[in-house]
């Protein structure tokens, strides 16, 4: 690269098209030769006070005497700069990369090297408890947006030189930084290689959230209904997964960290399970499985039984249900579909609406649409109860909400068209689809199918820690893993 200061600066200005946030502070160093220098930053990304204290204040009064540009640059690095975070750089590409990350770059006229000084000082959200993964007992810390903060949250929990952060850049335009995080002694090199290959194949213009990448991490020709990529906002969860040989992908600007490979049974495991007593953890796990099946099958089974096999209802329920359904104008299939659909609309509205209006929407939903519709005889109370139960159950395993919602609609339609038989066939197809899915080569249904007795200690029930700690689980050791 040319070492003339004016040329470097004019090149930079041209690259940034004289963008308003590109800040260049021109300096003349105290020397016989009147050496020119410049500090380049991006407005809003660095802490001005820190910049003054660690760079400008020590630099301006220092007497460089008769030194030339190159000698002055060496002196700046060895004796002048008061910052601990200094990187020596040589190219324009590096300048752009560092200044857009909040560094200040010092360029000395006539010197070959330049210095990127860590003075990042942009505003960001603090480390808060993640709303989507609330725990009763355990850490209240959750990931935040800045990459380095998230890295420190993991490093604080894994004081181990085995923990490796490997930097990559994705997005042709956004140049988003991401970190692959893994334990060197636990991870499979082949698995890691496979992941890197997939990330390198990502040809997106911009990667603004970790979710953009999750589809690139899914296995090819694998069912996309269930996700083979885990997401967590909790550093303790990520650390737990790293010890099992998994790889975390931390994307700059997103608190949701991607974890691969992801297995079906993990959707039912929570941080609290490992803090609670074993019998209670087992009870909670079984409740989660029951809720999953209820959320998935209840409306479909209800429709199938009410439409084709009412004789299977116990007599008392049959009488009440028949009376209730007889008063409504719509067939039970359409009614169930309509209520489920209205519920989804209300849920979306509830998520997007300002918090101050949320209460009003809740009242409208519960009283107007719910109670009034039942009283007016538009919908039956039994159908409403079934849909509401399924809806509540679907939040018990919230990561599975998208596939469960879609499958629920499918089961309602099939139950209404083909009865129980249709639901059986659809279930068989669903199981086949799940069994064929892999996450980075690891079978998605591992522990169940292929069955492994050893890993079953942490599936339906959680064994005590003494028993769990006897065997190290490594995800690449799961049966029939292709890496």
């Amino acid at each position, binding site marked *: 690269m040319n070492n003339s200061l004016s040329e470097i600066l004019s090149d930079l200005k041209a690259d940034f098209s004289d963008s308003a946030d590109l800040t260049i502070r021109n300096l003349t160093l105290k020397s016989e030769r009147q050496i020119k220098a410049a500090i380049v930053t991006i407005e809003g990304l660095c802490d001005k006070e820190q910049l003054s204290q660690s760079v400008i204040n020590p630099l301006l009064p220092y007497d460089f005497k008769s030194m030339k540009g190159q000698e002055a640059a060496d002196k700046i690095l060895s004796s002048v700069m008061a910052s601990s975070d200094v990187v020596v750089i040589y190219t324009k590409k590096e300048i752009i990369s560092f200044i857009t990350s909040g560094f200040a770059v010092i360029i000395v006229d006539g010197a070959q090297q330049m210095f990127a000084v860590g003075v990042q000082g942009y505003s960001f959200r603090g480390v808060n408890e993640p709303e989507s993964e609330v725990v009763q007992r355990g850490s209240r810390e959750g990931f935040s947006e800045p990459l380095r903060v998230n890295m420190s949250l993991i490093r604080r929990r894994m004081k181990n030189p085995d923990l490796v952060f490997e930097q990559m850049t994705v997005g042709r335009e956004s140049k988003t930084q991401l970190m692959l995080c893994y334990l060197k002694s636990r991870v499979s090199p082949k698995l890691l290689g496979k992941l890197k290959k997939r990330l390198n194949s990502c040809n997106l213009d911009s990667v603004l959230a970790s979710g953009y990448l999750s589809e690139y991490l899914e296995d090819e020709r694998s069912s996309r209904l269930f996700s083979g990529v885990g997401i967590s906002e909790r550093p303790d969860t990520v650390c737990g997964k790293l010890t099992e040989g998994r790889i975390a992908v931390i994307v700059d600007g997103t608190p949701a960290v991607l974890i691969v490979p992801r297995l079906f049974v993990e959707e039912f495991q929570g941080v609290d399970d490992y803090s609670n007593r074993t019998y209670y953890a087992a009870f909670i796990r079984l409740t989660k499985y029951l809720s999953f099946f209820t959320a998935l099958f209840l409306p479909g089974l209800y429709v199938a039984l009410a439409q*084709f*096999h009412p*004789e*299977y209802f*116990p007599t008392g329920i049959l009488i009440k249900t028949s009376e209730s359904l007889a008063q409504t104008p719509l067939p039970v299939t359409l009614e169930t579909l309509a209520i489920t659909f209205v519920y989804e609309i209300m849920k979306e509205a509830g998520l997007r609406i300002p918090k101050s209006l949320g209460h009003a929407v809740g009242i409208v939903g519960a009283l107007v649409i719910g109670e009034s519709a039942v009283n007016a005889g538009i919908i039956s109370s039994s159908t409403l109860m079934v849909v509401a139960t399924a809806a509540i159950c679907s939040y018990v395993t919230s990561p599975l909400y998208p596939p469960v919602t879609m499958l629920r609609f499918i089961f309602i339609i099939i139950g209404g068209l*083909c*009865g*129980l*038989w*249709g639901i*059986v*066939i659809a279930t*068989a*197809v669903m*199981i*086949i*689809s799940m*069994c*064929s899915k*892999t996450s980075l080569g690891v*079978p998605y*249904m591992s522990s*169940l*199918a*292929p*069955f492994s007795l050893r890993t079953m200690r942490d599936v339906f029930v959680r064994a005590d820690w003494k028993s769990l700690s006897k065997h190290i689980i490594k995800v690449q050791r799961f*049966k*029939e*893993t*292709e890496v």
Partner: protein
Amino acid sequence: MSKVRFSSKRLLLTLMLCACSVILLQNYDISEKSSFVFDILCMLFGLAICFVLFIPSVIIKMRTNLDFLTVARTVTPKLKIPLAVLYSLYFVYAAEFFLLPYTDMFSKKYYSDVTPCLIALILLSACVYAALKGVNVITRFGIFLFVFALITNLLMFGGSIGTLDFELYGFEVTGSVNDFIKNTVYFIIPAFIVTLFACLSGKTKNFKLRQPLFALIVTGLKYGLIMFFIWFSLGDYASKQEYQTFILARAARIGFFGGIESLYLALATMSVFMIISLVLCAVTKSAGKESDIKYVIIFAVILFAAHMCGSYLNSVKEIFTNNYIFAVFTVITAAVIPMMYVFAGRKSSARKTLHSINMS
């Protein structure tokens, strides 16, 4: 499709579930004159024959760690087409042998308004999807089916205990030679799993001789229990009915909890789904194109056409559901032809070829 080798234990578990489904679906086609103990003896003899039929394919598997079809194509490349035709015919026949009674049972016993062909069409479409995923995935599905079968059987048998009656029927041995032949042929039907094993065991590992033995013992236990409950719980009423296992499930009650026949129907449906999916895998393999979408669809269409003929033409249905034809066909494909290759494989030239395939 995955190239990974999966546990042989799991394939045998899946085949065991397929074998158990015979008594779930079939019309319990044994002599009315023979006694319970006589039927049990016939069953033991029939399953012993099944085990003997396993021997050639077990020898091939243990010797080469390959499936029979791969060995046959390697040792006798000139016979590739006749073998493909014979095994394709057998598998189409086997699929119809299970599909026709199933749709018949469904429309007669469960939901009379439905057209059997529509059921067959939907079922075959689901099977095409499963067959495209391969044998490994179907055997994983078998694990879930095994758990479901265990629960259903426990409920079915547990719910029938209250109605057991040992006074009317004893444990004497009565039956003629004709009864013995008829019953034994019925109990040879599960040997179709031997042909499936011979064709689909190529990608399995850790095969042990005790695995097929164990599969047949569990099948025998299940048959024995179903026969016991049909005999002592339903009694004469059962012999006058079609699809006695369905009647057993319908009659079972645990307190106020009834309707076990819906679970039975689900089990039967999933069993047929699994058998036909495996058959589609096997038939495409016998045609030389494993889990190839084009071949799977072609054979599914052939199965549907055959089912249409079987549904509307009684003579065709009788051929497709004839126990004797099926037993003979099974013995030929499961034992006679593989046995020839057991002897052919002993020649040094054949050994060298197989060894080179194994190494590759």
